[in-house]
């Protein structure tokens, strides 16, 4: 009698696995940089090409680095969320304009609004490679010692900001 029940037992286990699988994203590759120092860069700013910006300028502060581009469709989705975040003053937001043309990036910010304290210009995407960017938009939370604490792959949503990002920022501010 019991051996006839083996197929259904296996099937139930399979169902459970597939059910869990529906909540996972097989394309998402978790970042190996969490807990590691943010890779060093020195890039020109988007608005003022003569000035440069480096992650070292931000040591001692908790900050958010958002990777965006004028050609990126999902970035439009998350832009209002970033504007709100910047307006709230909870954490400074810096932008990395990734593989874009300067004029396009500037025009995009002009039209959509500029939440970034400073936007840096990564024309050939090398800094993006260092940071493991593979799906724009991506957002990093970096702490006072320059260690990456969180990476969001994909557009930011109000829920993620409220439930993950802001609590983390508060925790890092206290440290």
């Amino acid at each position, binding site marked *: 009698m019991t051996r*006839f029940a083996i197929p259904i037992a296996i099937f139930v286990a*399979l*169902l459970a696995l*597939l059910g869990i699988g*529906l909540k*996972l994203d097989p394309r998402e590759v978790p970042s190996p940089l969490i807990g590691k120092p943010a890779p060093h860069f020195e890039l020109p700013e988007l608005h003022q090409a003569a000035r440069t910006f480096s992650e070292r300028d931000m040591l001692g502060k908790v900050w958010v680095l958002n990777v965006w581009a004028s050609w990126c469709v999902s970035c439009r989705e998350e832009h209002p969320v970033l504007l709100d975040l910047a307006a709230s003053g909870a954490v400074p937001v810096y932008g990395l304009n990734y593989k874009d043309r300067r004029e396009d990036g500037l025009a995009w910010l002009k039209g959509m609004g500029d939440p970034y304290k400073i936007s840096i210009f990564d024309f050939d995407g090398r800094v993006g490679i260092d940071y493991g960017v593979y799906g724009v938009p991506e957002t990093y939370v970096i702490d006072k010692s320059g260690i990456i604490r969180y990476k969001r792959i994909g557009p930011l949503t109000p829920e993620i900001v409220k439930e993950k990002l802001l609590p983390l920022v508060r925790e890092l501010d206290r440290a």
Partner: protein
Amino acid sequence: MIPELGQLALALGLALALAQGLLGLIGAARGENVWMAATRPAARGQFVFVAIAFACLTTSFIHNDFTVAYVATNSNSALPLQYRVAGVWGGHEGSMLLWVLMLSVWTCGVTLFSRHLPQEMAARVLGVMGLVSAGFLLFILFTSNPFVRIFPAPADGRDLNPLLQDPGMVMHPPMLYMGYVGFSIAFAFAVAALLSGRLDAAWARWSRPWTTAAWSFLTVGIALGSGWAYYELGWGGWWFWDPVENASFMPWLTGTALIHSLAVTEKRGAFRSWTVLLAILAFALSLLGTFLVRSGVLTSVHAFATDPTRGIFILALLALVIGGSLLLYVWRAPKIGLGGGFEPLSRESFLLANNVIFAAAAGSVLLGTLYPLALDASGLGKISVGPPYFETVFVPLMAPALFLMGVGPLARWKKASLPDLASRLRWALAAAVLAALALPFAMGRWGVMVALGVLLAAWVAASGFVQLYEKVRNAASGVSAWTRLQAVPRATYGMLLAHFGVAVFVVGVTLVKGYESEKDVRMEPGDTVELGGYTFRFDGVRDVKGPNYVAGRAQIPVTRDGKPVAMLYPEKRIYRVQNQPMTEAAIDTGFTRDLYVSLGDAVSDTAWVIRVHHKPFIDWIWGGCLLMALGGVLAASDRRYRLAARRPREEYAVAAAR
């Protein structure tokens, strides 16, 4: 108006499918003749309405009705007519509608060819198919409606994926679905048998032709997919163990076990539990495949646009259909009983080993396909499982199966004698060993794996000839050889042809893997490259325009020993609407080899990267599959199934009462 009519037709089809299902199953359980009799018209009505819905969608495509969202995402006004029609099943929603259409076609077929079945069994079979159909129609209407309108309508559509704009790709889904859906009939027969408690040789004889036909279609569908990947993707590969490929392969493996198990159940009444379970599993794997490619659970080049709601719905459908039938199996299978006994060495035991091997093969493919998901779900990381695993596990399982293919058909039922088999097969073995030793040398160099593959293929082919020879020789004397050959049942020819097809397939795979070669070179116009004894010259690239694309077309004359062999024109196309680049490889097809040239990228104003392949015997792979499918068709059309159809029903009732 037409899309709305289509949607209405689907809703009516759903109502009729539910009626078919409930009337059939409840009617059979309660012995209500009127209800049972009503299932046939209900099934035919369902077919009519689903066909109307499909026709409405096709009309929307042909007339470029971009107010329908599905048409807008899968078609374009510049798309040639045949691809506008094929676009109907180019995306998720339309392909589900095709699935349901196929199901209603097969159901209609069952209503036409089941006159000889006892009414109760026919009602149950149609009932189960009705419920499955209803499940899919609900899925379509609630989560995957192809008739949803979009407002404002776009000026033009997003075009059919260029990869799908191809004749092979047009036929691949319909053939595949004919296979998947055909297994639902075997499934329905199995469930009907479990419900009625009657599972005997007669049941197997009814199931067999349907199952074999479904298996043949699935074989063709998979072969088309593989052949398409070969000539379309530009790398010269033909099987990647991609999750979606595996999703079609698992039902095929299980289906192969099933058709062999059905043979035993029909001839000897044995393996009943195996056969019922295999029938449930074959369809279960078809449904699982549908789930895997549409739910976003696995990454694959094939995956349709994904949506968690759809995933949940199909998962629920899976749980109901398969869970329900497996529970039924737990409840009823113990009462099925055993059939005729047999010795450890007999045709039955060989076929049992065959069942086990193919079940294990399907299981190993399933494990490899789901392993990344299992690891991710338990938080152990993300990996991918590919050819290294599958080839290591699958190939060794097939070797004993190939050996059995030679011995099994010659073994006697119930009790076989080893010395007898050995003496009948000694020449086949000798021929196989000779081929294994000689052929690799003829190809250029000897290797163990190649020799093994040739050995097994030649063994299967040679033992097939022995079988045929014995049939001719053992007939009564005074009868001509031709008459004797005609007396051999069609099903036997089907088996011989299908097994021979397997041998051809194995030869193709072995020789291609053993002796293929390729070269990646940068070429200026006038340069030549040598491969496999052939000389390829690059004559430069010209710009050409297609109906909905622009392309760079290279001209590559091929010669051998100075004599012209072929003129090849590989292309690099850009389809205008989606701005998607595509490589169109140029292939010179031959009986003993393919010459395959694909265009890479331009590395300077005049120089291009060209990849040339020499693929010996690669067309034997798909030729073998075609022979297998033809063998299946031959077997399914054997006279005894049609004669049995004319046998009066009372005969069955008497047999059951015994």
